[in-house]
């Protein structure tokens, strides 16, 4: 079961996984799919809006697109955990298998954001980064909560 948010051209979704949560992003480019995947990750944590008060730069690389998607999400998870932040907007650039990004967000306020879960890490389960027949890029995996 998937529930999708966004337009037909770009958006994110959650999909069913027994114990945890599947996150996916789709868009016209790899980068937009990765950005939407990050939005899906945040939506697994909170339903509340996240202000863009602070920017964090992230860079990572991996041998292929799928591992790069996991690296990207895990980099965000690390920044959330150590900066005590949530993120609401993302700008991703991918050259080859190297990703540079800027994530914008704010310090977490448990009373306002009411985080439902704390994501432990992105996994290789249901991991996929692919260009679909309709031309849109899809990036997805299950995250362990």
């Amino acid at each position: 079961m998937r529930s999708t948010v966004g337009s037909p051209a770009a958006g994110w979704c959650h999909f069913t996984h027994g114990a945890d949560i599947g996150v996916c992003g789709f868009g016209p480019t790899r980068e937009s799919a990765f950005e939407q995947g990050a939005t899906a990750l945040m939506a697994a944590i909170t339903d509340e809006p996240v202000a863009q008060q602070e920017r964090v730069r992230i860079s990572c690389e991996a041998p292929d697109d799928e591992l790069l998607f996991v690296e990207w999400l895990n980099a965000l998870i690390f920044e959330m955990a150590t900066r005590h932040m949530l993120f609401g907007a993302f700008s991703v650039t991918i050259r080859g298998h190297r990703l540079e990004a800027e994530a914008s967000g704010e310090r977490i306020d448990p009373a306002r954001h009411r985080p439902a879960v704390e994501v432990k890490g992105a996994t290789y389960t249901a991991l996929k980064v692919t260009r679909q027949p309709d031309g849109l890029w899809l990036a997805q995996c299950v995250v362990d909560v």
Partner: protein
Amino acid sequence: MDPALLQRHGDFEWHIAPIGGMHVPAIIYADEALIRDIDDKVYEQVTNVARLPGIVKASYAMPDAHWGYGFPIGGVAAFDPDAGGIVSAGGVGFDISCGVRTMLTGLKREDIEPKKEELAEALYASVPVGMGSTGQIRLSPDEMDAMLDGGAQWAVERGYGDASDLERVEERGRMAGARPDFVSDKAKSRQRDEMGTLGSGNHYLEVQVVAELFDPQTAAAFGLNEGEVVVSIHCGSRGLGHQIGTEYLRDMALAAAEHGITLPDRELACAPIASDIGQRYLGAMRAGINCALANRQIIGHLTREVFARFFPQARLDLLFDVSHNTCKLEEHVVDGQPRRLYVHRKGATRAYGPGHPDLPAALRPVGQPVLIGGSMGTSSYVLVGTPESEARAFSSACHGAGRSLSRHAAVKRWRGQQIAEELAQRGIIVRSPSWRGIAEEAPGAYKDSEAVVNAADRAALARKVARLDPMVCIKG
């Protein structure tokens, strides 16, 4: 899962004979109803594990088995280092040494009832819970390494709890062979603010009443009396463990080919025990175990402080502390011969039987307490390791019930406030920072833990001793 896919060996044991590269059979312990309820992915995962190098005897799945990461959750597999055996980060999981600690209060239900709401508020205020919560302890780099080496022993030396607690913790509270130098700076920074925090998801602190005794003699040996109150804590190694899991899963996946390992599933990322990366993971994972043991020791201490304010006479003696996501070097008898094996338990609890030398003297005659957590609003259980348990699955038992509904589906079906109100009407006080979190953890989203525990008992993995029912539940 269709039972017709399996070979039935009695009412509670199902085999998959070795096929297609499996070195050993797969064995699932469950009754037929549980088998039908187990998702099909478990078949794929338990047979994939059976294909890993150096596996001994069988790839096991416990009665609460469900879809995991490479290994099924509820998976048990042992590997021989002298036969090219592997160690797998996926076979341990992200939450290294997640486990349960249960303390005996000596108080009765009627002592708690008049103060239940205040007690719930005090516990909720004192134990940091949920994403974004931070502990009061900040460790210097040297103290961080001391904690990763010393575990619960370190915590006791720092004033958290009593030395008498340690004999009731696996490994006497300190996992030997920990290598803090194999734990990355990123993992340590992720733990910096999280010592003494409960976490989120299915982690909890519960005040429970001993509702039923199934084995009065063993219950008496454990100090469990019907109508008396215990406190159980379920959490793990927090951010440090998660980061160790993340990093080594990646490193093992990237290194698999150079070790001649073909992974049917990237999540099965593993390395030869004797390899450099295998040894580094073992050292880091053992440090993660110590982090979890220290964390539960600290939270246990915080709980005692709260109880002391309400019930100055209550001691909160530790019954036992078990972990259910580990890989440990253990001696087991296989075909009449003792062998040293690396036993992975992924969502499975060690269950040493009577007489095991690693048990404290007071418990050695009866066996190890096996603490099986329920979900919010449902019963938890105390079991005991059996003499048969080693032969059944390297002295292993289940760890919980597993979900029957995804988080996604649970949120669509229930509202958190509705669940909290329903539980309050049943006399269960719930405190959590998130209504959505409560909905995701709704009792109806979990399988029937009684069925799982009954199957573990009938399969001789561990024997039922007592049922614990919740009174107060603090959830992340």
